[in-house]
């Protein structure tokens, strides 16, 4: 069973970590929550259908932990660690603008209603397919497509307002 868990960590560990990091904004807490996700997965391994990929099941556990974390911590962090932003080879001015854009994107994401935010994060940070998002959130595919579309429109409108789009 530990071999199965190791495989899960290797395949999904980084993606789950990145998703949790988006919620907590703190590397230590993100590591703790990721560890907790895999501990719970190990504990409830009997309920995992081995004929299916483990991704949606693990993201569901991680999502529940993140929701609990948010409930206890009231809201998403005001800002994320500097090193969370994707590094590029740009010059100082471009780098500054990129970071400003990334900060604005984080701010806009925080302002989105949770149902849209969740789908966007699973798609763009968790790198899940529509079908996997459906399974993770127990939603119909039409609803997932709809939420993703509306969420993206909201994201664009908010970025346009701030002059970042």
């Amino acid at each position, binding site marked *: 069973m530990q071999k199965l868990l190791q495989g899960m960590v290797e395949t999904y560990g980084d993606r789950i970590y990145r998703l949790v990091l988006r919620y907590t904004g703190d590397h230590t807490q993100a590591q703790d929550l990721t560890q907790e996700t895999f501990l719970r997965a190990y504990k409830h391994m009997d309920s995992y259908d081995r004929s299916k990929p483990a991704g949606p099941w693990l993201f569901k556990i991680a999502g529940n932990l993140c929701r609990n974390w948010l409930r206890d911590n009231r809201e998403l962090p005001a800002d994320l660690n500097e090193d969370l932003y994707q590094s590029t080879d740009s010059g100082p001015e471009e780098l500054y603008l990129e970071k400003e854009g990334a900060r604005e994107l*984080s701010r806009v994401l925080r302002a989105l209603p949770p149902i849209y935010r969740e789908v966007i994060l699973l798609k763009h940070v968790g790198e899940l397919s529509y079908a996997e998002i459906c399974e993770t959130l127990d939603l119909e595919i039409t609803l997932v497509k709809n939420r993703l579309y509306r969420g993206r429109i909201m994201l664009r409108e908010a970025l346009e307002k701030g002059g970042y789009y």
Partner: protein
Amino acid sequence: MNKSQCPDALTIQAVADGEENDLIITEHLQDCSKCRETYLDVQRIISVAEGLSSDARLPIGFYKVLSGRIESKPFPAFLVAAIISALAFISVYLLNPTYLEWWFSVGMTRQFGFYIDMFFDLFFLSRSINPLWVITVMTAMVVLEFLILSKLKTVEG
């Protein structure tokens, strides 16, 4: 669906996400300027949203720490609480045996809630602090108490 029919925005989004690869739709997107505009618009917001991801990775040795936590069995907190309670009774007996007799005959009914509270406090303490430390400290205190009492008895004659 035929080639001249415009797909809805959700289908165009699915194409942009790589979830839909119906040849009729992709051909339509090439021919219809309105749909192509929607497609490019969706693609642009997708590339912006991609910025939400990061290159953060789990630290090296993450799995080792995780498997270490899996292998270590949790210490039974109830057992710890019971041991500490027993040590507390021994301590009370050493201090004053009559108090323990009084407690069993009269005090138990009056102070039962207090002892239940104490038991659960110890239970939660054992879960947050390494229980072996709590037991060691309690045992040390009882031993110290026993030594002091025997010393006092020697002095009193």
